[in-house]
């Protein structure tokens, strides 16, 4: 579009000069020099406006600039034309008398170019701003939802309250104990920042609290086994990373089979990674019950955001055993660049 416009301007210029009885040679030289130098000035204006968009009340400045540039262009053009075509008969006189026309032509073109540039770059900028805004909104919404889910596990919460309700009349002491455990658990979820790093032993304490509540709910059906190496307990991990895995295993194990269920957790440090495996039994003919999988996805996403790696979560199904293995790199391997704005990485 841009190129075609300028080609047309050039052709017109030549034809006008020819019509004013200039010889072909002079018409072509004059037109080329005038139009090309004007093009150079236009590009200069466009480039300036690309990086500097004036406010509405400053539009008058642009007009002043156009006038100023037109003057320079006129002088430069005059000098170049005399250099290139001054030796032709009567050209000097023609050039002198045509200066006002050339001046207004230049001003018109430069004015148009700046007007179009301002409108175009303004709309571009607006589009970008809008895009940024929606992106930011999406991110914050995602973070918000994630946090909400972590705090509110309605099923867990209401069922626990129901168990307490039952215990109050038959075993008041246990009811009181469970109220305490549930409070500690909820406080723990609320207090922790999303990407805070804590010792694995701390996460385990929290996990035990959760498991004890679940054991009151499900009675003899739920059994757990833990096998954790000494080295693993001091490894730093993002808080609340393992709890969703456990929740998933319990849901999947207890709702996917009937009878007793043993959930196993094993943790070791291997190759500078904390390797945590959570195992639950399942019936091969069962599909994942509703709601499972979400916890796994959120763990996967968090590890990706933190370490910029997608190979840290592994899911294995063997016969009647479902195993989720996560690998947590050392805290030093954090990928700072990958963390979106709004999520802070804190270490204590």
């Amino acid at each position: 579009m841009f190129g075609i416009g300028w080609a047309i301007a050039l052709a017109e210029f030549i034809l006008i000069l020819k019509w004013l009885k200039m010889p072909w040679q002079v018409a072509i030289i004059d037109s080329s020099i005038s139009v090309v130098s004007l093009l150079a000035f236009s590009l200069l204006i466009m480039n300036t406006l690309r990086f500097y968009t004036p406010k509405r009340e400053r539009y008058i400045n642009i007009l002043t600039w156009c006038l100023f540039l037109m003057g320079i262009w006129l002088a430069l053009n005059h000098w170049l034309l005399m250099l290139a075509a001054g030796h032709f008969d009567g050209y000097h006189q023609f050039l002198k008398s045509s200066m006002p026309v050339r001046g207004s032509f230049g001003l018109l073109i430069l004015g148009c170019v700046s007007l179009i540039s301002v409108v175009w770059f303004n709309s571009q900028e607006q589009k970008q701003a809008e895009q940024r805004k929606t992106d930011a909104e999406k991110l914050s919404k995602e973070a918000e939802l994630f946090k909400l889910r972590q705090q509110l596990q309605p099923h867990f919460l209401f069922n626990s309250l129901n168990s307490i309700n039952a215990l109050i009349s038959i075993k008041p002491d246990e009811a009181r104990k469970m109220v305490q455990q549930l409070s500690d658990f909820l406080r723990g979820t609320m207090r922790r920042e999303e990407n805070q790093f804590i010792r694995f032993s701390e996460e385990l304490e929290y996990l035990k609290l959760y498991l004890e509540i679940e054991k009151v709910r499900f009675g003899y059906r739920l059994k757990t086994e833990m096998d954790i190496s000494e080295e693993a307990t001091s490894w730093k991990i993002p808080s609340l990373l393992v709890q969703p895995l456990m929740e998933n295993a319990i849901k999947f194990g207890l709702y996917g089979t009937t009878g007793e269920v043993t959930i196993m957790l094993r943790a070791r440090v291997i190759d500078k990674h904390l390797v945590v495996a959570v195992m639950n039994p399942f019936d091969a003919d069962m599909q994942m019950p509703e709601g499972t999988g979400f916890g796994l996805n959120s763990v996967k996403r968090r590890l990706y955001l933190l370490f910029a790696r997608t190979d840290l979560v592994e899911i294995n199904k063997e016969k009647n055993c479902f195993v989720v293995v996560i690998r947590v790199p050392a805290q030093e391997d954090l990928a700072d660049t990958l963390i979106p704005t709004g999520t802070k990485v804190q270490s204590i």
Partner: protein
Amino acid sequence: MKTIIIDDEPLARSIVREYLKKYPELEIAQECNDGFEGVKAIQQDQPDLVFLDIQMPKINGFEMLELLDQRPAVIFTTAFDEYAIKAFEAHAVDYLLKPFNQERFDRAIQKWKEHAVGYEKNTSELLETVSHSPAQSQRVVVKTGSKIKIIPSQDIYFLEAADDYVKVHTHEGNFLKNKTMNHFEKTLDPQQFVRSHRSYIVNVQQITRIDPYEKDNHIAILKSGGRVPVSRNGYARLRTVLGL
């Protein structure tokens, strides 16, 4: 009068038991841990009222009810299930939200005593509604003799109308389900299951080829070797889904 409590959490059963002490006329015949035990107990004791949890191991409360030929009056108990609660309200079926107190429990019993008749119809409508939920349209729960079988929908070869039942064909044989063809046509994923004939619904992923058969008709040959009739309309529907 007899009642049965079905819930996978022992303490959740104990609270119902406690509230029931006020009603000596209601005898607790059995307490069940899951839907499998529930089906057996209901068939055995023919209770007048059942307290039924929804989220339970392997099959949920709704799926359990579907397996029964004769449904008792039911009061559902649930902690949190927006989908189910909407369905309860739509079909005027009573439910107790955990945790609940004696007062709320008494009201539910009162309601049951007043409306004991007519419950059956409401429950059937409720089951029809909840069977459209995404989780339940991915599988079919059937009963063969005393055994309960969960069939993931991808394992179904095809469905065949058989009087008042639908015959579900799988690699493990055929199972009867007391539902209509229209029900399955509505609930199963329409991108995978196509009504190829008035009396047949076929799993398109099982089809190896479709041959012409007599005039105007076709027949679908399945990977398993099975043959499923395809009517003229059914052929058009198959073509749309397969993108031919």
